[in-house]
């Protein structure tokens, strides 16, 4: 018996590796002219990313609050990025939470968000390569690590 079949919740199947997400402004954010309350984007599931990344233009469009600045490791070497606070929602997974959103200048392909292990740690996740689908299930117990040693 594998871990997915032991999960107590329903098994959620996503076609491909891009999932719809909604980035919301922080709760009770002051309304501003021309600033939407949220934006919807495609997010690539990226097990190599330790945190959620958004295109910096999303952070700017939503006027998100900056809460940190970090140097992050990328294939091209370390880069400095601003870190913003926002509410990340993934409707298909029933996930909605305040999250740190790292905002590098992502060169757009068909996604503007990377969903990394800060979200994936809450799920039992498998990728079925031949079928090109991802399976998600809630584990029986909460994550017992913060994945900060990578």
């Amino acid at each position, binding site marked *: 018996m594998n871990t997915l079949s032991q999960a107590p919740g329903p098994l959620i199947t996503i076609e491909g590796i891009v999932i719809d997400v909604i980035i919301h402004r*922080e*709760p*009770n954010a002051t309304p501003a002219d021309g600033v939407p309350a949220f934006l919807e984007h495609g997010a*690539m599931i*990226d097990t*190599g*990313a*330790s*945190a959620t*990344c958004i295109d910096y233009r999303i*952070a*700017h469009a939503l*006027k998100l609050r*900056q*809460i*940190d*600045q*970090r*140097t*992050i*490791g*990328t*294939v*091209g070497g*370390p*880069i400095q990025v*601003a870190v913003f*606070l926002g509410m990340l929602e993934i409707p298909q997974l029933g996930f909605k*939470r*305040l*999250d*740190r959103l*790292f905002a*590098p*200048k*992502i*060169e757009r392909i068909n996604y503007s968000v*990377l969903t*990394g292990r800060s979200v994936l740690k809450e799920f039992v996740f498998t990728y079925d390569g031949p079928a090109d689908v991802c399976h998600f299930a809630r584990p029986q117990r909460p994550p017992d690590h*913060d994945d*900060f*040693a*990578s």
Partner: protein
Amino acid sequence: MAELDMSETISAFQAQRPRLLQEHGAAWVVFISAEFKGAFREFDAAATFALDNFPDAQFLIRHTEEHVPHVPLVVVEAA
């Protein structure tokens, strides 16, 4: 929108990090300027605390044990 320079607050966090680790262990901590405001087990608890208590302040939220984050797939735009 210009990005903020938070280096002063980050320096304060780094200076106090050994003590915070000793007193709070692995935790998300909230700083305003050089002042430590609270420690929490979960990020959203730290963020909610900061938003509820310091909605108009510029605050830093960082984990006491976090190393360099990795996002290998990011392709950075040419300057």
